[in-house]
């Protein structure tokens, strides 16, 4: 899907010479993607993990061995490995594996929705700011500065407090903190493209501004946006879990990874697995998203390759 995209150099100042080891022989994007994502054992394993977790979440009603909300006090706090309950049970006897599978539906949806909304809003704001400059740019950037003036989790706490509990509100709270990432990225790209010849040419043949933005400026940053969307999804999985952990956003008994971890804390001394297993899942999914995101970045942008 990204094969026909022209590779954009990153916006940072690369004013120093690229060391010879970094110089990558020009390859087609397809080959680079294969090399960086599929042939790299770490990135490939991460991709598989993400697919398994996503499929598990989508098909949770079919694959989950038990009802995630079924309370059974006879089998409270069973350790992992108990026959029939591979990952054990929680403080009121609910099957942890089933809850993790169902929880993925909530946790992943919250993170992905937040990134998708932030992507749309951020790209819109960034295009406006970068392409038009001047007053519009000034206003948008000042608003983003305010968002960035808070440590991000704190702003999410504030917004979630105002909005109250619930999945939608959790999504909104963490959307706000990731919008600046996309807006700044898009603004930088739009500013650098604005003056280039092909944009001038499009303008000369009478293309309207929205058409130039959507047909010429946006496609030039698709690869960068894909990379950052992947990395931000990882950050949002943690942000959403943090909100649930603090008792904001998604509330128990809803099966959500962060909420599971928070309620599991009560039995930490007698049954540490109840809190640590959901945490492990959050960590593994975020790690996988980071690995895939970085592999994609290396594949799409050879100048940023980590030695």
């Amino acid at each position: 899907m990204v094969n026909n995209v022209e590779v954009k150099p990153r916006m940072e100042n690369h004013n120093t010479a690229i060391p010879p080891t970094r110089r990558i022989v020009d390859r087609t994007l397809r080959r680079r993607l294969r090399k960086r994502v599929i042939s790299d054992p770490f990135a490939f394993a991460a991709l598989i993990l993400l697919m398994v977790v996503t499929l598990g979440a989508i098909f949770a009603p079919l694959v989950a061995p038990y009802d995630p909300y079924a309370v059974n006090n006879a089998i409270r706090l069973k350790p992992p490995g108990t026959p029939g309950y591979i990952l054990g049970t929680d403080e009121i006897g609910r099957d942890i594996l089933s809850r993790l599978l169902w929880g993925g539906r909530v946790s992943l949806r919250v993170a992905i929705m937040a990134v998708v909304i932030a992507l749309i809003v951020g790209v819109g704001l960034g295009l406006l700011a970068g392409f038009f400059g001047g007053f519009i740019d000034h206003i948008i950037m000042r608003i983003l500065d305010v968002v960035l003036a808070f440590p991000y989790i704190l702003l999410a706490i504030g917004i979630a407090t105002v909005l109250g509990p619930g999945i939608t509100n959790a999504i909104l709270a963490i959307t706000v903190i990731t919008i600046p990432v996309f807006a700044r990225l898009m603004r930088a790209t739009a500013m650098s493209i604005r003056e280039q010849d092909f944009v001038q040419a499009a303008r000369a043949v009478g293309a309207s501004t929205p058409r130039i933005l959507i047909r010429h400026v946006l496609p030039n940053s698709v690869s960068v946006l894909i990379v950052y969307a992947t990395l931000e999804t990882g950050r949002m999985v943690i942000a959403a879990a943090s909100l649930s952990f603090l008792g904001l956003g998604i509330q128990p008994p809803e099966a959500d990874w962060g909420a599971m971890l928070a309620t599991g804390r009560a039995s930490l001394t007698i049954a540490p697995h109840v809190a640590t297993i959901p945490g492990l899942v959050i960590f593994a999914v975020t790690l996988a998203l980071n690995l895939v995101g970085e592999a994609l970045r290396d594949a799409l942008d050879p100048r940023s390759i980590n030695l």
Partner: protein
Amino acid sequence: MAGYLAIRLFSLVPVIFGVSVAVFLLLKLVPGDLAVALLGPEAGPNELEELRHQLGLDQPMIVQYWIWLQKAVVGDLGYSLQQRIPVQELLSARFQNTLILTLASLAISITLGLVAGVLSATRPRSLLDRFVMLGALFGNSMPAFWLGILLIVLFAVQLGWLPSGGMFSVREGPSLGGLLKHLILPSLTLGLISAGMVARLTRSAMLESLGQDFVRTARSKGLAEYVVIWKHTLKNASLPIVTIIGTQFGFLLGGAVLTETVFAWPGVGLLMYAAIGSRDLPVIQGGILSIAVAFTSVNLFVDIIYGFLDPRIRYGK
């Protein structure tokens, strides 16, 4: 330098204005009547009306903002709904504890991150480099509250070496030794996570610096390698490193909210956690404001250090 300082300070004005509006709105947008929350449901209409007038709730929004701002500037952040004492009193007792935790974490993060970053930059693609980069990726993907829980399970529950929470031992009372013992796990939690990001950035800044001509010059005039690396190159790579330390400070302040909750560390974060549970909005508002102010101050400080480190920034614009 004075001109540079003035410009930096002036550029903060719109940001601080925006932050104050955002924090003010936080309390205003929440559904519910503050007067009812303070007096309880049994209060009569006259009582409520009087309190609303006292608190200025019958005034237009802009006037309310102005009154709130005047009070906030001198530290008056209203009363806690739960404890009926000024928010400012609650915060000032807790803020220094948050600062202790944040600074200890920052010390761990910088020491570990800087050394690891420099070492892996000098041996790119070595086993050490791969190990450091993998560790950094782990840190970047690790939820602070989960790492905290793991450390508690290992060092407090299983091994029993360190306390699982609090700031001082209840039996022994406040002492420096007790403080340090209680500080180890929470500061390690935050410090390790943040060290990963410092290491990555230090490494790439060092790699960029190492490719420059002055490094070759320094080596060819016979300087010892450790002088070339730790003095010349690190100094030239210091600008992005100072930036990341500034952003890490913010990350740590925010992360302190979660870590304090895990370790029952009596800071602003734990105060806010309790306030979230009881929907004590003035306390949440005060907590967010105090940390945002601290964060903004640190960023300003970083900007100023920039001007010292690199005169080009001072004279540029």
